[in-house]
């Protein structure tokens, strides 16, 4: 049996790595992927707690998080496609002014 704290530490590590990727990368698609990584870390914590307390609420919430992440990815990537079309660049450092 694996103690719950191991899962929580892993979740914290993944979340931290997601934050590092979010801050340090400049390609907007990679930044978006780091958001997905953070959501996954949170999912892991939810499932770990849910199994530790033998209740299924956490897992139901994980399903909702996955659905919301899917919807967000769809719309977000649509916005990224528009951004790439208008500014011809996927570098977030070039998107620092409202003026094109």
């Amino acid at each position, binding site marked *: 049996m694996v103690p719950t704290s191991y*899962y929580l530490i892993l979740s914290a*590590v993944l979340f931290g*790595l997601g934050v590092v990727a979010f801050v340090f*990368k400049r390609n907007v698609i990679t930044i978006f992927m780091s958001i997905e990584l953070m959501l996954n870390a949170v*999912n892991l914590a939810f499932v770990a707690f849910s199994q530790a307390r033998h209740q299924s609420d956490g*897992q139901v919430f994980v*399903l*909702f998080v996955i659905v919301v992440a899917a919807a967000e990815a769809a*719309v977000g990537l649509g916005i990224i496609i*528009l951004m790439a079309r208008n500014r011809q660049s996927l570098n977030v450092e070039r998107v620092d002014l409202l003026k094109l």
Partner: protein
Amino acid sequence: MTPQLAVFFVLAALAVLGALNLIIQRHPIHSALSLIVVMIALAGLYLLMGSEFVAAVQIIVYGGAIMVLFVFVIMLLNAGVEERTNISKLAGIAGIPLAVALLGFLAAAIARSNESAQAGFESSTLANTKEISTMLFKDFVYPFELTSFLILVAILGAIVLAQREKS
């Protein structure tokens, strides 16, 4: 070292290495592939904990749909290798030890907490899928229907955003 602990360490190492690879790689397609590895490792961890339905949904939805969307967008936008940044070296030299120290404190605090419960394979009375679906359709039926509406809104939004301008 029970077999479950060994499997946990293997999957956890795979997940952390995948996340590190996401940061290190310079081409977004390689970052996307590393993220797929992380998701599959996490699905394995869910399976280890006994949540088989969540593991299957994770692979089908996250790994098979959301990441496919990312890979398509990377392919279509022809995203190239990232350029060199002029971020200061001091941030790296001072930041990484601080981050590791913070993580160490966090890990110690978690490990010392009262979470002595084992997130194991404890079988409940119902199978995992049946339990989740009962709860989803009885207690959480309103959020469930709302998520279908949310997905519809997302589909409409994505279609409108990605349309070519009528010029």
